[in-house]
């Protein structure tokens, strides 16, 4: 039948849902299948509904869809939460021996497996999820042996006995279904010889940071950015770096600022509320012309909002946040592999232009995993540009008549030389106060204007020198133009297939740079219909584009806390295309 399988496991937080899902996802990836995962989780440690969903195919998959083929349900709520996505060919694996009366919808095939009893037989009730994995393998025609390596990876640290028991548990689950059920949902999951790696956006950002030479990271735990810190912890040390868990976000960004001024490539990562706290220091970083990468992994706001839910609501904050006017770059990776590459770019831009760079990802990118060929992270292609870093030999040309270092020299391109501590004759002061070329406080009108212009000129230089291009999909000549930023790209690209079936021709432009950004005026003017897709209520990027292009644009906004699905997006685009353009 179809090779595109949608599998999920759901239960209460604390039931091991995440690790079970990850084990299966890794097994599929190792079998040469593409995987795309998504997570439903609540903001609590134990209890509450949580689910891990996997979409897998031999072809590339990069979004979620409204369909669930196999559901491992540890609670009734798991079934209830997913009723809309179940269909005639769905199977639900559950444990009929447990106290809950499973209320299985009519159209789905009930596969009652004594998960707990079989797990106990294998060595402990805790392995009931692994039994369910074995059962799922049998139903999908996926060789249970593929689980073995994932189980080793997950449980190897706990000893070979645990790994063996889990392997046994998987086999008992598989055999139980084989002996007691004659389920044929038509799946026979094909495997390939392809090599894939499976990772999420936070991990890709962390890996990008290491590849780019990041040596210092300070952060404060916050969902969904903490994974960046967790990834770097234990890895950054291999390169002589260090991670500090600061006492708060204010400290985190100031520590990172200190390390950056000391010459280290530095980063902090946080989410919306943390960005608010960092805003004051953001201005200092820009004014003192310190290179720093500030990663905002967006979640639903405002205030503490919905911490475990998707949203793209911080764009205005990163674009306009902070008092006064300061140059900044805002980079928005669109896929998990782009999280890697844009992080590398962010470090280069930060040092080259000596200014803070916002690296803006969102929850949907951060916590979901996707398979890529390892070449997608080709380390040989990583280039490092440290900008105008001076040393003991080159510092001389930047000294004034009295031998003082002109740390904020008024240059044509707006970029001044940078001396790090230890550079002989490079000693200078940096400050958030307005200052002259030497970094000394001033309120002289001429110098003020000169320094403001100088800092802003960096953006003009960057705009002219760098490639701020967009990514493009669909039909290049289509009259209908859909524009998006951030994680919506994957769902949009898949929506193109649905639209094509309906005979709707669409060109998709996905924008990874918000400031500086590509000029979309010609694209907008050439299109009949323009729709801007984003996960927020007001259309923050659409506002920006309307101002740029002086054209009213149609908008698709989702702010339920759930990411766009490909089929849903295809439908929404079709509906939007029939609507009138809003009045000027």
């Amino acid at each position: 039948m179809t090779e595109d399988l949608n599998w999920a496991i759901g239960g209460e937080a604390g039931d091991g849902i995440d690790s079970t899902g990850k084990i299966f996802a890794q097994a599929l990836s190792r079998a040469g299948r593409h995987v795309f995962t998504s997570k439903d989780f609540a903001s609590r440690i134990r209890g509450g509904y949580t689910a891990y969903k996997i979409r897998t195919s031999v072809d590339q998959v990069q979004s979620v869809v409204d369909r669930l083929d196999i559901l491992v349900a540890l609670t009734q709520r798991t079934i209830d939460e997913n009723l809309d996505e179940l269909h005639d060919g769905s199977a639900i694996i559950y444990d009929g021996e447990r106290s809950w009366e499973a209320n299985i919808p009519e159209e789905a095939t009930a596969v009652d497996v004594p998960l707990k009893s079989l797990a106990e037989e294998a060595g402990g009730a805790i392995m009931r999820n692994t039994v369910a994995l074995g059962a799922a393998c049998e139903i999908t025609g996926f060789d249970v042996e593929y689980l073995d390596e994932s189980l080793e990876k997950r449980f190897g640290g706990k000893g070979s006995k645990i790994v063996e028991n889990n392997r046994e548990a998987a086999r008992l689950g598989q055999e139980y279904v084989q002996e007691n059920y004659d389920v044929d949902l038509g799946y026979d999951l094909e495997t390939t010889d392809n090599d894939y790696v499976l990772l999420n956006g936070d991990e890709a950002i962390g890996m990008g940071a290491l590849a780019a030479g990041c040596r210092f990271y300070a952060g404060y735990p916050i969902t969904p950015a903490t994974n960046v810190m967790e990834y770097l912890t234990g890895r950054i040390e291999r390169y002589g770096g260090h991670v500090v868990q600061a006492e708060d976000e204010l400290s985190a960004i100031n520590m990172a600022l200190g390390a950056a001024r000391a010459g280290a490539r530095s980063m902090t990562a946080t989410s919306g509320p943390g960005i608010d706290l960092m805003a004051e220091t953001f201005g200092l970083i820009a004014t003192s012309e310190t290179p720093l990468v500030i990663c905002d992994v967006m979640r639903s706001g405002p205030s503490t909002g919905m911490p475990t839910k998707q949203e793209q609501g911080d764009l205005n904050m990163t674009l306009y946040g902070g008092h006064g006017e300061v140059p900044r770059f805002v980079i928005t990776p669109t896929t998990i592999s782009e999280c890697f590459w844009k992080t590398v770019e962010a470090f280069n831009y930060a040092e080259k232009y000596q200014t803070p760079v916002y690296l803006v990802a969102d929850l949907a990118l951060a916590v979901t995993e996707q398979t890529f060929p390892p070449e997608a992270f080709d380390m040989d292609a990583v280039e490092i540009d440290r900008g105008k870093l001076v040393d003991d030999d080159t510092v001389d040309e930047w000294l004034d008549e009295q031998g003082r270092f002109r740390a904020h020299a008024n240059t044509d391109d707006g970029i001044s030389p940078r001396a790090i501590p230890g550079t002989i004759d490079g000693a200078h002061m940096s400050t958030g106060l307005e200052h002259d070329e030497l970094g000394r406080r001033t309120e002289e009108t001429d110098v003020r204007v000169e320094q403001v212009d100088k800092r802003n000129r960096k953006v003009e230089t960057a705009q002219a020198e760098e490639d701020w291009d967009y990514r493009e999909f669909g039909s290049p000549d289509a009259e209908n133009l859909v524009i998006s930023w951030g994680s919506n790209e994957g769902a949009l690209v898949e929506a193109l297939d649905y639209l094509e079936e309906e005979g709707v021709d669409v060109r998709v432009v996905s924008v990874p740079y918000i400031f500086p950004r590509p000029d979309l005026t010609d694209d907008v003017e050439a299109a009949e219909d323009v729709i801007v897709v984003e996960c927020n209520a007001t259309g923050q990027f659409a506002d920006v584009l309307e101002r740029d292009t002086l054209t009213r644009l149609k908008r698709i906004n989702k702010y339920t806390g759930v990411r766009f699905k490909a089929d849903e997006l295809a439908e929404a685009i079709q509906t939007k295309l029939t609507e009138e353009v809003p009045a000027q």
Partner: protein
Amino acid sequence: MSSEVRFTDFKSDKQPTWCPGCGDFGTMNGMMKALANTGNDPDNTFVVAGIGCSGKIGTYMHSYALHGVHGRALPVGQGVKMARPDIEVMVAGGDGDGYSIGAGHFVHAVRRNVDMSYVVMDNRIYGLTKGQASPTSRSDFETSTTPEGPKQPPVNPLALALASGATFIAQSFASDAMRHAEIVQEAIEHDGFGFVNVFSPCVTFNDVDTYDYFRDTLVDLEEEGHDRHDYEAAKEVILDAGKEYQGVMYQNENSVPYHEQHGVTEDMSEIPDGAPEDAMDLVREFY
């Protein structure tokens, strides 16, 4: 250059705008002397300052320096030192900067025990905003925002430091130039976080905690035969509300600085031209 460094090498050509007679002149001179005496030079020294009169110090001194935002000088200093263990880091702040808005950072900087020094110019008032109560103001000290006094006890920064696990706690007086410079020098030489609270009188707005007041009341711990390695003795002088002390209250002989505890010893400013050679191993972890 270090062998012939004089303390005036740490002086910038910018004239201080502090009020004539301000305690901060003496505090700064002592810091410069201490830096020179410990063999540092401006090119390997990083001074971080906060906001307020004390924050201006980065402008009047010559070294690598950052004048940051209010209350956040300590995190900046720690970041500099962690990235560059080879650099001498000194953080300067005031009582408002360090014990009010920055109090949280103070506690955590103390417990991290990063090998740096922290000099607080304590004048028991907000000077640059023209005379409001500070966290170390006396509870009956009348100001524009506390006409009947703050009516709350002052923060005891030394006790706060001790309770947070400080390994070096000292107090000095800006006007006793020799002792002050000596004490700051000891803070620099201490293997860990060297904290010095400096009585630095505000001649414009504080007519209670004056030079004369400190001259008359100050007790030198060295003359008292205080044992700085004795925790109980330190507790006693630190919690003694009846007297003003100068000297080193406490020094932990077994202080293990942050970089030793965490293996943070590399110069982080140097990185390869491209991704590190074994970087593909990072990718392989995701198989």
